[in-house]
């Protein structure tokens, strides 16, 4: 376990070394948030509510969703590159689980971006836009747990597609399609409140809703008490399901590599 925590810490420290990247990350996150907020302000056109959702709720939802999606962006071609240049076999020889090592390093990077990209961008946003405060302290804690689970779901979806590079020459195209799906179905572009009811129903059966929307709803107090628990339970269910699928592809991939020799 300690080794994995250290992997995350090393990655975190490595990111600190890049000053320019650090400032550009803040600027990038801040610009994305501001642009979207402006568009929505115009769409609201002075109205206080659309479909029972206030501008302030939309703004809060956007800041959380966009901020997190910027922070949770990692190198999704990592496994493909390792397979192509053959260095994957060296990874098998390390006495740690490669899957958990990858996850730990991605988390290290994610935490760095959360603290050094998202937080400053959030403070900057607060200077000019009023956001909803958290509904309650327990709700805020539940939201943090839910964010972590949301990240795991996002990571597992990406990892599953990454494992396909054991069979496919490139997974870049599939990854791009996946990202479009995440952007639309997880509510990065348009909050899920505004989706047509039928589509919303379909999305609720996919893991995408659990990525950003569940944490947002917990934060805004749209989910309360037992609803929070069931929201998190759905997240856990998705993590287990996707984890099993990921492990299946991963084991098969290793088997293929070991038999065919890369």
């Amino acid at each position: 376990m300690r080794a994995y925590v250290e992997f995350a810490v090393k990655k975190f420290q490595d990111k600190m070394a890049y000053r320019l990247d650090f400032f550009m990350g803040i600027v990038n996150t801040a610009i994305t948030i501001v642009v979207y907020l402006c568009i929505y302000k115009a769409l609201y056109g002075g109205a206080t509510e659309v479909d029972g959702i206030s501008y302030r709720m939309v703004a809060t939802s956007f800041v959380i969703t966009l901020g997190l999606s910027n922070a949770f962006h990692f190198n999704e071609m990592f496994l493909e590159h390792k397979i192509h240049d053959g260095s994957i076999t060296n990874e098998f020889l390390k006495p740690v689980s490669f899957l958990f090592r990858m996850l730990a390093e991605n988390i290290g990077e994610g935490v760095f971006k959360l603290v050094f990209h998202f937080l400053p961008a959030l403070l900057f946003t607060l200077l000019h836009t009023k956001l909803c405060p958290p509904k309650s302290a327990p709700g805020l804690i539940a939201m943090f747990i839910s964010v972590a689970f949301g990240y795991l779901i996002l990571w597992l979806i990406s990892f599953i597609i990454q494992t396909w590079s054991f069979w496919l020459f490139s997974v870049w195209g599939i990854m791009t399609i996946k990202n479009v799906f995440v952007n639309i179905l997880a509510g990065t572009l348009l909050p899920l409140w505004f989706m047509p009811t039928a589509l919303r129903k379909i999305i609720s059966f996919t893991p995408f809703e659990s990525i950003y929307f569940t944490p947002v709803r917990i934060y805004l107090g749209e989910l309360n008490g037992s609803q929070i628990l069931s929201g998190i339970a759905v997240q856990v269910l998705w993590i287990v399901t996707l984890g099993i699928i990921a492990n299946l592809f991963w084991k098969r991939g290793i088997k293929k590599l070991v038999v065919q020799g890369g």
Partner: protein
Amino acid sequence: MLLIVLKDVSKTFRDKNVLKNISLHVAKNEHVGLIGLNGAGKTTLLNVIAGVIKPDVGFIRTYGKESIIEDHQSLRKMAYLSGTRSQLWEELTVKASLQNCMNMYQINPQVFARRLEQLQGIFETEAFMELKPGNLSLGERMRCELVYALLAEPEILLLDEVLIGVDVSIKHKIIQFFEADRKEKQATIIYTSNHLAEVEKLCDRVILLHAGEIIFDGKAERMISEFSPYYRMEIRIAEGLPDLEDLPLEKYRIDSDRITIDYDKQKIETTQILKHLMKKSKIGDIRLYEPDLEGTIKKIYGGREWKTS
């Protein structure tokens, strides 16, 4: 104790038979040199031993495991170092990679510090600690890789062409390090190379692979005395022609002032030839060629048909 056991192992990639019926036992603390020309199957054989390639047929056990890569306890006792692939983290500094190594191999921090200092002294890697592998030259990188591999004091060490790109002075240090290790009997080493001379210094036992088959397995001295091909001497004569008829040479050719001699060290020493030459003539220039691997392979095959694939 037998650490590595292979029995009738074969491996085919697409249509190429890379390994053919390899049977091999390696005991604890044995130093084995695996030599062969390019494409002989040396790296594949190491990969099979390391568990990253599964043979089509045959029996393989490393540490009693069919596939060592699934067992982290056993993996902690093995290091596989390759001149063409890196164990270091490409995106991290060498120092961070070494610290990751400490955590993965569960090395006590004090032991780690002591061991690191010792290895830094041998491989002179102090200056590279804050750099990333991409900023190092091939030789510098190899030295860092060696430090990384040796930090955990592995019981099994698989070394694949590790002297590639390393300066002569460092090469000498590396060879010295492994020679010392050979005396202390601390690790089991399998070392691949296509230089007979390197392997002779480092290993108790030599395995010669050719086209996926083991064509020699035994002591290095035996291989050299029995199968080493002829040495070659090229001499430019400044004055007076020598008489070479009464020397036990394999072959010689005189071409105006140049003489080329092929001889067998079992029959005649280099100095004997020189003494004989200097009796009658003045020597302008001498060049000596050591026997190479290709010659050795040819000689082992002897009268047999010379196979190239």
